[in-house]
Structures are given as structure tokens and as C-alpha cells.
């Protein structure tokens, strides 16, 4: 406590840096129409959530990472989109939250709705685009891999032959679907889609 900087830090409880930023959520950040948007994309009414936390408690993901289903529903109620950004893709859609929800909300489908909204706003994580590209190229979201072929062989499963006309037909059909539903444009993979 000899020099003045030390004194100042002690005075504000060592939170010198944090105090520079305002932690108040401004009204302008709220989007009270957001719950309606979620409903449009198939999420049930988040407004009826009792905030009991049952969904978090049964969520296998919540046990491992800092992801609280209940909090995300709360953020949705206020339309605080930015707080839901990083977490919406981790949901495994196991539907245990839906099974236990006393308010009969389906949090898993809310997460799916959030993904729809995010993608339409152009917020697409790279792994999603990669999976979509794989789908367009190979007809499956996982890229063919010699390692996988090895496992298939061990399990006695048939090999995937890229030259097989049937296989090529399936890939083309998927491409047609991706194009017809404008999914290719949405994700930005038009070039990968073979018609």
C-alpha cells in the first residue's frame, strides 16, 4: 500500500479493470419479439417457462460444460441473442429436457429454432459449413476417410464406392434437394452442389 496505484486497486476490491466496463444490460439490447420468432421456427412458447432448472439438471451437456438450458430459455424470453450465440450448437437434442419440463416447453426444439435463426442471420460456425459441404459432395455429413473404411471392413459393412452409379445418383439427388430448398445458398455452398 505504498504507491498510489496499489491503494486504488485495494480500494475498489481489485476489480480495477472490470469496473471500466458497464455491466448493465441496456433496454436497447432487449428484443421482446424474439420469442415469437422462436415459435415461428418450431420452438414452443418460451414465455411459459417457470425457470425451475429441471432441464439443466437432466441435460448431459450441462454436466460437462458451462451450458445452462434454463438460462438460454431466459435469454430467449428477453431476446438477448448474443448470450445464446456460443452455446446453441452444443445441444445433442436428446430431448431429456422436454421429457422433464413441467411447463411442457421443448428446450431442444428451441435450440434448433435458435440455430435456424442464427444461420439466417449469417452466423454459421465453420463446422456447420464443413458438414454441409460434405453432404453436398459425398451425400453424408462426414467426409469419407480410409480410417472409417477400415472400421467398416472390420464390422463387415459394404464399402462406399465413389464410382458406383447408384452412389452418384444419390449424391445428385441430395444436391437437387439442397438446391430446391435454397439450403445451398443459405449456407453458402452453391459451388459444391452438383446438379
Amino acid at each position, binding site marked *: 500500500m505504498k504507491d498510489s496505484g496499489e491503494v486504488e486497486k485495494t480500494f475498489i476490491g481489485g476489480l480495477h479493470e472490470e469496473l471500466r466496463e458497464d455491466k448493465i444490460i441496456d433496454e436497447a439490447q432487449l428484443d421482446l419479439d424474439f420469442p415469437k420468432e422462436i415459435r415461428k421456427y418450431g420452438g414452443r412458447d418460451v414465455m411459459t417457462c*417457470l*425457470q425451475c*432448472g*429441471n432441464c*439443466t*439438471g437432466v441435460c448431459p451437456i450441462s454436466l460437462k460444460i458451462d451450458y445452462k438450458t434454463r438460462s438460454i430459455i431466459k435469454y430467449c424470453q428477453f431476446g438477448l441473442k448474443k448470450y445464446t450465440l456460443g452455446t446453441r450448437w452444443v445441444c445433442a437434442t436428446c430431448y431429456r429436457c422436454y421429457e*422433464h419440463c*413441467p411447463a411442457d416447453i421443448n428446450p431442444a426444439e428451441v435450440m434448433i429454432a435458435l440455430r435456424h435463426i442464427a444461420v439466417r442471420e449469417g452466423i454459421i460456425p465453420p463446422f456447420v459449413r464443413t458438414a454441409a459441404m460434405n453432404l453436398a459432395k459425398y451425400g453424408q455429413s462426414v467426409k469419407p476417410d480410409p480410417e472409417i473404411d477400415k472400421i467398416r471392413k472390420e464390422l463387415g459393412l459394404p464399402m462406399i464406392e465413389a464410382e458406383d452409379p447408384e452412389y452418384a445418383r444419390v449424391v445428385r439427388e441430395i444436391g437437387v434437394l439442397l438446391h430446391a430448398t435454397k439450403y445451398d445458398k443459405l449456407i453458402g455452398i452453391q459451388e459444391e452442389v452438383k446438379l
Partner: protein
Amino acid sequence: MTAPAPQEKDSTAMASEKEAGKAAGPRIGVFVCHCGSNIAGVVDCTKVREAAGQLPGVIVAKENKYTCSDLGQEEIIKAIKENGLERVVVASCSPRLHEPTFRKCIQQAGLNPYLLQMVNIREQCSWVHSLEKDKATEKAKDLVRMGVSKAAKLQPLEAREVPVEPASLVVGGGVAGIQAALDLAQMGFKVYLVESKPSIGGKMAQLDKTFPTGDCAICILAPKMVELSRNSNITLLSYSEVEEVKGYIGNYEVKVRRKARYVHEEKCVGCGLCADACPVKVDNEFDLGFGQRKAIYIPFPQAVPLKYAIDKENCLHFKTGKCLLCVKACTNEAVDHSLQDEILSIKVGTIIVATGYDTYTPKKNGVYRYWEYDNVITGLELERLVNASGPTGGHLIRPSDGQPPKRVAFVQCVGSRNKKIGNNYCSRVCCMYAIKNAQIIKEHAPETEITVYYNDIRAFGKGFEELYHRIREDYFVEFIRGRPAKLSQDPKTKSIKIRAEETLLNKITEREFDLVVLSVGLVPSEGSKKIGKILSLTTTADGFFAEAHPKLRPVDTAMDGIYLAGCAQGPKDIPDSVAQAKAAAASAAIPMSARKVTIEPLTASVNEELCQGCGLCTELCPYGAPELVQSEKGGWKARVTEALCHGCGTCAASCPQKAIVAMQFTDEQIYSELEAALPGQPKTHAKTHHGKKKAEAEVS
């Protein structure tokens, strides 16, 4: 009130020209109500009034801010007298609310009260079409046109009076039934109290202490039970069930099954020698399986009547034909295995339904593992375990090993506020009984750690919030806001681990407890379901009985002469149950004091010349009003008991001969409405459109 009252707009300009051409039909007055802004905020009432003024037969059309107010009613009376009106159409709210008001009003002006036609432009226009103002106005005009057209065909009807038997049947002997019976008896009415169990007392007798004051439940209930048994106006029919109810307000004929006790009630003195001698021990349902009783038993020491009963399923004599130790033990020759059920017929004027509740039973394989883990119990089971006259003498133990628990968890909202199981409602008592039981446990064993898992604490009653405060301040009870997600049992210690999100910390916690108490909610009782069928009572979506009006007729049912008290109508605590019981008794006393009651003339009547006695109406009527009787000329004819008839029109709509007419809903009246609704359509004829007519009658 700041908004200026609308001018009394009178369509006098049209009045004179009408006078000439309209002498033939009855003179009609139309009164359009603004209902403040309830209607006028959406429907353009002036347009509706102007349109009504043009209709055939309409002499006067007025609008009013509140037609039901004194001023509004005065105006109707004035208009009737000044213009010699013969029919009145009020376009306002649902007839359920104000039809009686306006009937009285036009009666004051000298008109027959049944020459009134209500048009609902609030619930059916402004409230449901609040976003489409123009369409709502058009619909209001259509409805008024239909109402005016029907009004022209209305016929005067006369109400009848029937006598009322000054006796009441109270079904259910819990605290609500006891209170209602006592109040009625003290007013001087004869009361029959029917209770299905061997003793009255209900669920309250099972409780330990009552919130928020901590009075001992049985200590305050037992004196009332004794008082009831000693009141000469009350016939206590314990161990009995209502089998059949016929009749109508003032004149109910009730059959009560008196289940055989196998003990002569008049001889038994309640000494208990028989039970001492009985060799059979079974779980006592009163203690929810924690204590035991004999096969000849009273459920609890303070039972009223203090008369033993034999449980036929477990009695050795009924199983093997031998034993009879109780017969030998009884010094008064009261035990008699040859007794049979008896059917008792009684006549009453009113019925009070106080059939109470059951506690919610947690699901098998549910999250809370109630059926698998010994140390997960319900709130009512805890009441018996902390009760001084309970199986443990008031010492709280855990069921698995009989040891006192060091850590106790309460789980709130089990079976309440849960859409998944269909119980959307709050059971109103669980928060407070959990808090109260936490206090009892802390008083017995202050070192016990108590945690309450809650969603919201609803401490809304008098003294409730203070208790909630005290339990945290003085007893250090911990509250976790979160619904337990997973319960798991330690196989050795049988302790229960609870995983839940502590939502206010935003963290998932896992805690171990010796005993977990599920604060189970309240559900309609089995007895309620039975009596509901017998009395044709309606229920609300939650399964509890529906009151006639949620605010203004809270103890009446849709059936005249039948009243509700206690938890049969919805979850409530003891003070509310007692208050409602007193209200039900007071309501039942109204017709019984008057000794007579007016019966609505809106009933069905049979034209015997057309009736062919097919009996279809007797099968379809939900109230049992029509019956087939032998006519003088031979052959069967339907006859409607007017006091039973509710005027629903089911019989009239279904009669293949069109022999039945529902008053104020005659074919002629309904067709005149339909013709007004569909202007320009070819006239429909009843006789050529049987099927269509039936469908339309149902719609109307």
C-alpha cells in the same frame, strides 16, 4: 369516470313513419350497451343502434354506456311505458350474467319477464374480434337483427313455485362437511351427514399441526366432531355412501348405503376390548401404512362415532369361518358378523358436496423414485411421522432404518404446476405445509439440516409470509430455487442424493439427504368423482367441481339446490375450507328458510297428441326429466317433470315426431332467427329439412 356519457340517442325521427306500417307485430325496443369501452371500444354501437332502428317492429332503439346500471334500467322502464313496448331486446353481454337483471327490470315496467331477448355483442363480438372492428360491428348488427326477429315471436311464460324440504344432505365428513353440517343444524335444519369412512374428521384429522399458527389439528377438530355427534338435528351416517339421488331443488330423494360395520352402533361403547382380543394385524390406512391396526378397529383414538367396525377383507372369521374372539371379548354383545348393508331413503331439500381431495400419488418409475426408495416419502406421510398420536409417537425416523434423519430435503410442486401430468394448477397448501413441517422437525431436533427445493414460494395468506420469514431467520432452513432433476440412492446408507440446478447460482448441485419429503399436491378425491356422476356435477379443467360463477356464486353449482364446500371445489387450506363451508351452509339455508323456490319456466313440454312414446327423450336427457307414462287412452306418452328440466333442448331437438317444444327455443323462434341471419335465402321449412334443422337447433 372522465369519459362523457353518451347522449341518449333516440331514433325518434323514424318512430313516426314506423307507427303506420307496423301495427301488426309486437312493438319492440332495442337497447345497445357500450359496456364502458368493453363493447364500444370495438363495435360501433351507434351504427348498430341505427341499423336496429330500421328493423321491422322496432319502435325504439337506444344506446347506453352501461345498460345494467340504475340509469340504464330506468331508461328501459321509461321507454316501455312511453312507447307501449311489448318486447325488449338488450344487446350487451352474455345472458348468463345479466338476463336475470333485465328480466326483473322489464317486469317492473309491467311486462312479462320472458318477453326479453338478450343479444351478446360483448363475448361474441367485441371480445373475440377485438382486432377486426368493422367485422365485429357487422356481426353485432346481424346478431341484433336475429334477436329482434326472435323477440317478435316470444311468448309470455309464468314461473312456478315448489315447496322445499327443510333438510340438507352433507356429503363428506371432513372439516368442511363438519362445519357446514354444524351451521345448518344450528340454524334449525335437519342435516344428514354421510361419510364413507368409519369416522368423520377427513384429512385434517391426519395432520399434525396447522400452519401458520401451529395449532394441533386434531385438538381443534375433535371438539367440533364431538359437537356434531351430539347435535340432535344431525343424523351422522358414517361408513355410508350415497347410492342414488333423484329429484330437484327442494325435493331430493336420496338413497344411502349404510355399509355393514358388523358391530351394532347402538350397543358399541367404544371400549376396545374387541380390538385387544383380535389376532389380526394389518397396516392402518389412517397412518398411511406406517402404523398398524386390528381387523376390528377405530381408525384413530378420537374417532367419531367411537364405534368399532370390522374390516371384512382381513377378518379371520370372514376368511375361515372361525375365530370370533371379538364376539367373546365384547361385554355388550355388540359384535355381529351377520349384519348386512342397509339402504336408507331420505328426503332433503338441499345438498352440500364436501368430498375433499386426495393427495397426488407420485408416478411409478418417476423422477422422484417414490415407489423404489424407502426414504422418499410424501408430505402427508410425514404428518403421521411427526404426529404425537402417530405410529412413532411423534419421533421422526427414516423408514429404511428407523434412525432419526440428520439431513432432510423437501421437494415442492410434486404433482402441481406440471403440464406433463396434466395438473397445471397450484395446490395452494404445499409451500406452507412444507415450511410448517420444517419448523416442526426443527423444534423436535434442532440439529437437523433442512433444505427446501422450490420453484416459487407462495406464502399468500394471513400470517404465511411471517412464518416463511421466521423459518429462515430462527431455524436456518435453506431454500434452493430449482426442481430436482435426479434422485439416486446410496445402496449402503440408503441416503438419497439429489441433483438439481440451483437456478439462482446458475450451478448444478448434488447434495445428499437422509430423508426426502415430496410436497405432493391435491387432486380431486375418488369420492368426488363418484358423487359427481350421481349428481351430474360439472368440473373445471383441473377436475375439481365447477362453481356456478367463479366470483359471484362461488359455492353454488349449475344444479339448483346443490352447493360446494372445501377442497372438492379446488385446493384450499383449512381456514378457506371452513369459510366456504359456512358460505355453503348459508346458501343452502336460503331456499330452506323460504320453504319454497321459484322454478324457471324455460322447460320442455310434450304435445301428447304427437308423441308416439318412443322414449328417445328419456334416454338422452342428462337430468332425467322426461319419463314415459301410460296415457288414459292407452299407449305410452313422454311427460316432462318441469322442476327437473333445465331447458337444454336436447329432447326437443331429437324428438322424431317434433312433439317436444323447448320454451323460448321453439322451432318457430329459432327459424325466425335463422331467417334474419340469412336474409334473401329461401325460407326453410321445418318439415322438409329434418337433419338440417336438428343441426341448426344445436348450433343456436
